[in-house]
């Protein structure tokens, strides 16, 4: 099992990463094609829904939200691992983060953008969405700051802009490298512009270090708050199955979980597509896998806590919702969630699977499926089994339009992500160098120590 070589030439690092911007494997184009197709289909669904009305999604009076909000939470959740892991690991000086954090942060950014799309497709009057923005106006009309949806909007805006800035700031030295190594053309112009004249001077590095650290510090509480607020959309309401105190930590754990699983998936794809075998090494993958396993167990625990607290409370209405989830129309999906979320990750506990790429790939997909199901199982059963039995619904199955947009969102995300990786270095060159440098130092030190011992 090879890790990054200490003696790798720094020039080779530059070369390898820069190559990824030019000639990926064929698979890249295949994925891009399917992503385009999926996105196109989703777009068609949205146009149809926009023209005709939300009814074509087969939403109905109690079941007012459906897959859109569930998938919205999914994407918000997915965004968490990128930035949060990057920031936490940065603070903890965990060097193994360095080759993988860039794409993880890009994943954050793009999944947030995808989540934003769901807010759009979900609202009944998309053409009036700006009513939700707090802009000064003559009539003194403001959005309702008491609404958790508005907190959501605010949190996501903050998170998205901070993540983009974090990603960008961290990429400036690499953009300078790209600028210096690129043939003249639109790319070079772009890199020149974005590199802001970075030359790696001591003053730049000094301020860079502090800035990067500061933003990382901000991002951790921010990321936690974002998913807590998404949890508040539910926990702040009065509905059975939603009004649960443990929802914020539960959501955050779920978010980290799905984010980590997505990192594994994307890690494996990028490693192959962009020939990053030397940088995205199996020992790193193994670390992520172990982390994911730990988070999976935390999630499982919080899940159990939620059920237990509902079960032992005397809130019969919430209990009914839980029973409905286990035994009602939704039970296959609910048990699917339990299986994918709590049982499948046990694969990660087995040592020989921790570096088995096909197994990890399949497992990570299953985990994400489980996490998507989790979100659906949070949103839908409460609607169809709420306080008012008269309105419990019969026909809550999402229509092709809803499914189309869910698949379309994956297309959209993949599209953005792949384009990003093609335009910007998805492995941080300067930080891999740092990593290598630190290792060399470390080796030297231990050699010196050894010699001293002799």
């Amino acid at each position, binding site marked *: 099992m090879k890790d990054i070589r200490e003696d790798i030439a*720094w020039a080779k690092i*530059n070369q390898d990463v820069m190559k990824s911007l030019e000639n990926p494997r064929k698979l890249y184009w295949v994925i891009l094609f399917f992503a385009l197709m999926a996105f196109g289909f989703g777009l068609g669904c949205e146009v149809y829904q926009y023209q005709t009305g939300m009814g074509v999604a087969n939403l109905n009076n109690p079941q007012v939200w459906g897959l859109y909000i569930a998938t919205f939470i999914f994407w918000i959740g997915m965004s968490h691992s990128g930035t949060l892991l990057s920031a936490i690991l940065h603070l903890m000086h965990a060097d193994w983060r360095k080759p993988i954090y860039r794409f993880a942060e890009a994943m954050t950014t793009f999944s947030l953008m995808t989540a934003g799309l769901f807010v759009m497709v979900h609202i009944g009057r998309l053409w009036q969405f700006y009513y939700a923005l*707090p802009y000064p106006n003559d009539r003194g009309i403001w959005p309702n700051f*008491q609404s958790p949806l508005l907190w959501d909007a605010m949190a996501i805006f903050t998170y998205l802009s901070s993540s983009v800035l974090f990603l960008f700031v961290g990429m400036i030295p690499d953009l300078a*490298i790209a600028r210096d190594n690129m043939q003249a053309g639109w790319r070079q112009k772009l890199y020149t512009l974005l590199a802001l004249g970075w030359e*790696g001077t001591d003053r730049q*590095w000094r*301020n860079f270090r502090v*800035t990067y650290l500061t933003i990382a510090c901000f991002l951790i509480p921010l990321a936690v708050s974002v998913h807590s607020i998404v949890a508040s959309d539910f926990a702040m309401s009065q509905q059975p199955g939603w009004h649960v105190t443990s929802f914020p930590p539960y959501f955050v754990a779920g978010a980290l979980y799905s984010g980590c699983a997505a990192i594994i998936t994307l890690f494996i794809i990028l490693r192959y597509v962009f020939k990053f075998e030397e940088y995205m090494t199996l020992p790193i993958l193994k670390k992520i896998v172990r982390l994911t396993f730990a988070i999976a167990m935390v999630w499982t625990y919080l899940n159990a806590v939620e059920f237990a607290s509902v079960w032992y409370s005397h809130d019969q209405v919430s209990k009914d919702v839980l029973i409905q989830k286990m035994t009602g129309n939704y039970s296959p999906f609910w048990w699917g969630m339990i299986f994918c979320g709590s049982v499948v990750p046990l694969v990660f506990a087995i040592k020989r699977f921790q570096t088995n790429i096909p197994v990890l790939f399949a497992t990570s997909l299953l985990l994400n499926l489980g996490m998507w199901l989790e979100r659906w199982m949070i949103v839908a059963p409460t609607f169809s089994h709420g306080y008012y039995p008269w309105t419990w619904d019969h026909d809550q199955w999402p229509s092709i339009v809803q499914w189309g947009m869910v698949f379309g969102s994956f297309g959209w995300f993949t599209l953005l992500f792949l384009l990003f990786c093609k335009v910007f270095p998805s492995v941080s060159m300067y930080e891999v160098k740092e990593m290598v440098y630190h290792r060399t130092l470390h080796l030297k030190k231990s050699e010196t120590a050894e010699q001293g011992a002799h």
Partner: protein
Amino acid sequence: MSKRHLLALYSNFDEAEAVVRELRNTTINGFDVNDDMIVKSPIEHPEVEEFLGDKPVYVQWFTLFGALMGGLFGFFLISGAQANFYMQMKGGKPIVPFPPNFVLTYEMFILGGVFITILGFLVCAGLPAKRSPLYSAKVSIDNIAILVNAEEAAISVLKAIFTKHKALEIQEEAGK
């Protein structure tokens, strides 16, 4: 008095460190080691800061200012808007309710902090910057560069020191 730039490239930090030490210990007319020397490196290198001496960073003050202003602005924007919009009551809640406003204040606190930190970074690091007169793309690979700006008289002394420490390459700005 005209000054000229001089750039020397080194393959590793130890060499560069030795050069800087020497420059600091040597008094050269027309060259101030604190003002006229810039070290460029491909990676963030704490040692560089060490051997360059104590140079303060002010970004965190921007952060403090941004976060506080963000928070204050957030709270008063929201509460003020609510107070002016009192016709739209929410049953069971005061017109300016604290819990939601605290959540939003918190977000605005972070938003302000992050934005102003970035601003501070750009200001403190002098970005976006004009490219300096002498630069080598090798810095973006693995070389350490020492850029000095000195009076004509000092140039040769500096050059000698650079050469002594086995500079890989020395670039010289043309005289004016």
